[in-house]
């Protein structure tokens, strides 16, 4: 496979221009620029809040310099709290073309849109000459998430992704699983897979943090559709979700936006540190997808039982359907039918191999169902994290 070579040596599997609004007040202008350019490789991201937040600044820096991103147009209203100068500097330092448009200085909505369309098209043209170089599985960062889980997820799609993860890790890729709130109940089982006793201790601690946080929020990471699909408790959902991580050693814990420092399997601790401040850790699946992308994920393996249809900006999302009934109903949205395991027509191993092959094809440029259908969801909200690093949980 070939990848787009970036200045930092990383390789991308897509070459996207992101148009990023830096406050909700600039959202309409940024969205209109993207819709007028009407190019699947020019995509909208953004942050809605006006108050400054270290996490969201760091997330936007990582997203705008992601290996799948070739260039950036920032759209600011002008008076918001977002540190657009720092973001623009980080992007420029990464060697990517970057333009900043400030609506209050550009003469308003109409002229900013006109200027933005021109600049996005120019950057798109400019990055068509990005050098393409050999890329191997070992260069890939792959994340996994489950959404709209049901009672079949934990015995079909999730363990099949686990098989795929084990294959990726054997080929020296980097894999990320996440949502510590959906590991409540399996922390001690998971700790047995830790590479070191310290990591084992930290795995347990970060799940305990999630349990405490969700208890204060009043709801677990559990949706009504999970129950309709046969899941009864948080810990039942957790055991199913945990199967996505496969059987490899767990090499470390990362926080959103932190790039894994070596190859292997990493748990992303998505629950904020300190007293709950900004509400639920992740208000919907796309917030978790965005966090894995900010940690370098080139593509996302998304398992679903009830039938999620989402994709994402920046990185392709491969949809793996756990439930054969759902697959019949939503087959146009699904890349892999893991429901065949439930029907006794395929084994977990076989579907795991199919997901692995699909991952390679998408990395080589094949479009996923969600890409074909134009899904480019994006969600970024406020959070607070203490220092990242081995001692981040103490």
């Amino acid at each position: 496979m070939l990848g787009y070579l970036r200045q930092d040596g990383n390789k991308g599997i897509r070459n996207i221009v992101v148009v990023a609004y830096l406050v909700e007040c600039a959202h309409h202008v940024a969205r209109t620029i993207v819709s007028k350019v009407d190019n699947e490789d020019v995509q909208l991201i953004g942050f809605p809040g006006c108050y400054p937040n270290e996490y969201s600044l760091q997330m936007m820096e990582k997203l705008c310099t992601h290996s799948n991103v070739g260039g950036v147009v920032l759209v600011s209203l002008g008076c918001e709290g977002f540190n657009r100068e720092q973001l623009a500097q980080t992007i420029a330092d990464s060697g990517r073309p970057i333009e900043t448009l400030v609506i209050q200085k550009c003469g308003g909505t109409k002229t900013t849109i006109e200027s933005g369309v021109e600049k996005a098209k120019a950057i798109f043209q400019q990055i068509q000459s990005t050098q393409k170089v050999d890329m191997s599985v070992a260069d890939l960062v792959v994340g996994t998430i489950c959404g709209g889980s049901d009672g079949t997820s934990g015995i079909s799609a999730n363990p099949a992704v686990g098989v795929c993860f084990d294959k990726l890790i054997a080929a020296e890729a980097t894999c990320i699983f996440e949502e510590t709130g959906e590991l409540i109940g399996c922390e001690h089982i998971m700790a047995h897979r830790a590479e070191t006793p310290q990591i084992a201790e930290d795995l347990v601690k970060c799940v305990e943090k999630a349990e405490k946080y969700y208890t204060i929020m009043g709801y677990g990471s559990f949706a009504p559709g999970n129950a309709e699909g046969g899941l009864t408790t948080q810990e039942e959902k957790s055991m199913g979700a945990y199967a996505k991580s496969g059987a490899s050693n767990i090499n470390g814990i990362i926080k959103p936006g932190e790039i894994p420092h070596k190859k292997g399997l990493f748990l992303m601790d998505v629950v904020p540190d300190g007293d709950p401040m900004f509400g639920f850790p992740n208000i919907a699946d796309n917030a978790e997808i965005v966090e894995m992308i900010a940690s370098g994920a080139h593509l996302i393996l998304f398992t679903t039982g009830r039938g999620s249809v989402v994709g994402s900006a920046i990185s392709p999302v491969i949809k793996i359907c756990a439930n054969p009934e759902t697959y019949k109903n939503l087959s146009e949205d699904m890349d892999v039918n893991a429901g065949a395991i439930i029907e006794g027509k395929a084994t977990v191993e076989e579907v795991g191999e199919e997901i692995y092959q699909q991952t390679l094809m998408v990395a080589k440029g094949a479009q996923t169902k969600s890409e074909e259908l134009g899904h480019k969801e994006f969600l970024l909200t406020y959070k607070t994290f203490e220092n990242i690093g081995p001692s981040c949980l103490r």
Partner: protein
Amino acid sequence: MSRNKFILVNQADNVLICCQPASSGEVALIDDKKYTLSTAIDVGHKIARTDLNSLEKVIRYGVPIGSATTDIKAGEHVHMHNMKSDYIPSHTRQAKAGE
């Protein structure tokens, strides 16, 4: 005979998982014994493999996934009406469950 509609995930489990929609009145085979289903069971849902006492742990994947809140008979639907989380209560669109 067609494949059993209910599968055992782990030998230690005391519930089985439904893999094909089953109707009320249908006969389910559990460890070679026949049980008549008193309700319809959808794919992904659980039925009891053995009689469970109130407060007994419900085991799936070989680990506890919550506790029974009433006595449950083998073959009965096991869900929010008769079991609850040992961690955080679940909820439906209408209400919280198992509090």
